[in-house]
């Protein structure tokens, strides 16, 4: 029934790890009056108060992903609107405390209302994406280090190695690493349980550690109880549960229909819908579609050659250079091939970094003097070929220099005389003389 969150001691450790999940205490005001409750401790008090005082019940309150945000949203709404506008009204024959009465009004806030449905869905997605981010991090992070719960060895590296050690050496199956999330919190929880001499499965307390170990071994309690809902948040599958919009009246009818068409009866109505109504062909084409992965939106920025301006697109950067520095990149590098452009860029970057003018090589003390000089003398340009055409400028001067990754070749690249001979791996094969005679180069048209 309860989504019991760990004690505040664990909050410190998990605060930096959880992105959106509010594990620290938040103050939530009651939806109608001014009573304040501190979540998560007062959650039950708050819900009881809503029921007793305001006759408001929230449907499926345990399914709501982030209850604090949910309540805050509705508190905003109910400041200006009445319950009736959003909630369904029920008439029951009793007062909140159980005494018999006639036709008492109660309000039910559930997801028949599209707004509420959207809100719940949005919160669930937030939770899911936060969990996935954390999961991705935990899969690849190699800086994890923890002492084993049973033996005294310290495991370094991936969390999956720790879980594998627990399984292989001590036969404690926590779960597969790919299915778990917030693993650190889970392990701390197990650790506290073991230190308090509480069995992991049945939660009975024991006298001392050997007795506890013996009990867990004999009874097969070396695992997590699937029925305990506190552990739900550590398994990724639970973030995926979406409940169908409640059409409570229609559900029995649909179930009856299903029983007629197929012989199978299942508890979870949404699973049945997937099988019967989802079109299988649309799944396959989405399965192997790579264009879904759209990236985070943080594009590698291109830094201007002469100032510290950043742009995301090459075309806008070129425009900036034309406007601010009166330097046309395309015109200046039109005759150069790819390798020469790379060298030019690395050379200019080095000069600017060392605060020397690009053209006349004068040294300056700071950036402003340098840019003033270059603006006055119109020295925003590429230097003479002799200065940049050196092999040292093949190597990128700046790390992650986005500008080097968007250079095009000039059209006259193929006949450039500056091309270095590229040798493929297998040099032992002799060129066939006949084939060479027939090759296009020797044809005179």
């Amino acid at each position, binding site marked *: 029934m309860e989504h019991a969150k760990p004690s505040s001691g664990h909050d410190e450790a998990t605060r930096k790890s959880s992105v959106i999940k509010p594990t620290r205490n938040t103050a939530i005001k009651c939806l109608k009056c001014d009573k304040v409750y501190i979540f998560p401790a007062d959650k039950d008090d708050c819900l009881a108060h809503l029921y007793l005082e305001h006759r408001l019940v929230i449907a499926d309150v345990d399914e709501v992903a982030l209850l604090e945000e949910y309540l805050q949203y509705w508190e905003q709404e109910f400041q200006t609107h009445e319950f009736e506008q959003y909630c369904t009204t029920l008439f029951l024959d009793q007062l909140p405390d159980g005494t018999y009465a006639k036709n008492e009004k109660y309000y039910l806030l559930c997801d028949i209302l599209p707004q509420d449905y959207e809100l719940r*869905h949005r919160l669930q*997605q937030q939770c899911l*994406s936060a969990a*996935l981010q954390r*999961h*991705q991090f935990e899969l*690849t992070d190699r800086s994890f280090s923890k002492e084993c719960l049973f033996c005294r060895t310290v495991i370094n590296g991936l969390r999956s190695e720790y*879980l*594998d050690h627990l399984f292989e050496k001590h*036969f404690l*199956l926590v779960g*597969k690493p*790919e*299915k778990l999330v917030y693993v650190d919190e889970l392990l701390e929880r197990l650790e506290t349980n073991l230190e308090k001499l509480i069995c992991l499965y049945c939660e009975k307390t024991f006298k001392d550690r050997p007795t506890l170990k*013996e009990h867990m*071994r004999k009874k*097969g309690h*070396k*695992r997590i109880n*699937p029925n305990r809902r506190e552990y*739900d948040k550590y398994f990724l599958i639970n973030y*995926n549960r*979406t409940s*169908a*919009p409640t059409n409570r009246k229609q559900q029995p009818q649909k179930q009856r229909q299903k029983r007629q068409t197929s012989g199978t009866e299942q508890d979870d109505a*949404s699973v049945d*819908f*997937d099988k019967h*109504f*989802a079109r299988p062909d*649309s*799944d396959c084409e*989405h399965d192997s*579609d*790579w264009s*879904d*992965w*759209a990236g985070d939106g943080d594009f*590698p920025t291109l830094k201007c050659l002469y100032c510290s301006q950043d742009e995301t697109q090459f075309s806008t950067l070129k425009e900036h250079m034309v406007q601010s520095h009166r330097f046309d990149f395309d015109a200046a590098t039109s005759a150069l091939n790819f390798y020469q452009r*790379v060298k030019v860029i690395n050379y200019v970057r080095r000069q600017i970094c060392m605060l020397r003018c690009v053209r006349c090589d004068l040294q300056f003390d700071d950036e402003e003097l340098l840019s003033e000089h270059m603006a006055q003398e119109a020295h925003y340009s590429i230097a003479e070929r002799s200065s940049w055409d050196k*092999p040292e400028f*093949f*190597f*990128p001067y700046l790390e992650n220099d*986005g500008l*080097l*990754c*968007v*250079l*095009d070749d000039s059209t006259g690249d193929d006949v450039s005389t500056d091309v270095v*001979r*590229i*040798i*493929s*791996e*297998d*040099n032992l*094969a002799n*060129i066939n003389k006949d*084939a060479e005679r027939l090759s296009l180069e020797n044809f005179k048209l």
Partner: protein
Amino acid sequence: MADAAPARSGFRGGFGSRGGRGGRGRGRGRGARGRGGKEDSKEWVPVTKLGRLVREGKIKSLEEIYLYSLPIKEFEIIDFFLGSSLRDEVLKIMPVQKQTRAGQRTRFKAFVAIGDNNGHIGLGVKCSKEVATAIRGAIILAKLSVVPVRRGYWGNKIGKPHTVPCKVTGKCGSVSVRLIPAPRGTGIVSAPVPKKLLMMAGIEDCYTSARGSTGTLGNFAKATYAAIAKTYAYLTPDLWKEMPLGATPYQAYSDFLSKPTARLHADA
């Protein structure tokens, strides 16, 4: 949550002589629940002709399969040749949604790249209801898509090949990626996503040039993979020499293949 119930058979009953450990050494629970599952590789029963040839050791290396462009339909073949040196990396796991009458159904899509840092690279994507299943499926698809990578020298032929042999370009969607040979010591000059792929392919130095909406990282990765695969598709002059036609493994070992496998009878 279903993972929380391992095989019970090991716990009950007095296997107490192990001193606090259950008697799970029977190997029954292990293969199903353990993460390694390395025992399964010994139990591979091939279903394709190529699989049978590989299993019996008639084919000495993966390159023989690539030489005849034989399609690889079993991932265990790749495992057989490259198993220990292959490293997989999960590039991204994202939830995808589908509107059904019962609301929205979320599945997880996993993008995985696999490579041995020495001349082989593969990419796979799989969608599934659970993250672990998606990752596993994507790894299998990545193994099936492994291609060889040709490397060459820039300038002097000293040491091992370190860069792409020529300028190659690959395209996927609107993204086109161009790989350009670079001198030794340059490193990989590119955005993070292709950099990972190029490192896993074993290319040490390379310039890249990307066009199109490189924000769609999926297409960006696929375009890089296409470019890397093209290194062996490009006919350079040193490959002009005519080689004698060899017999495909199917022909060379046709007598072996015509024998019915003893294993099938044993299972029946």
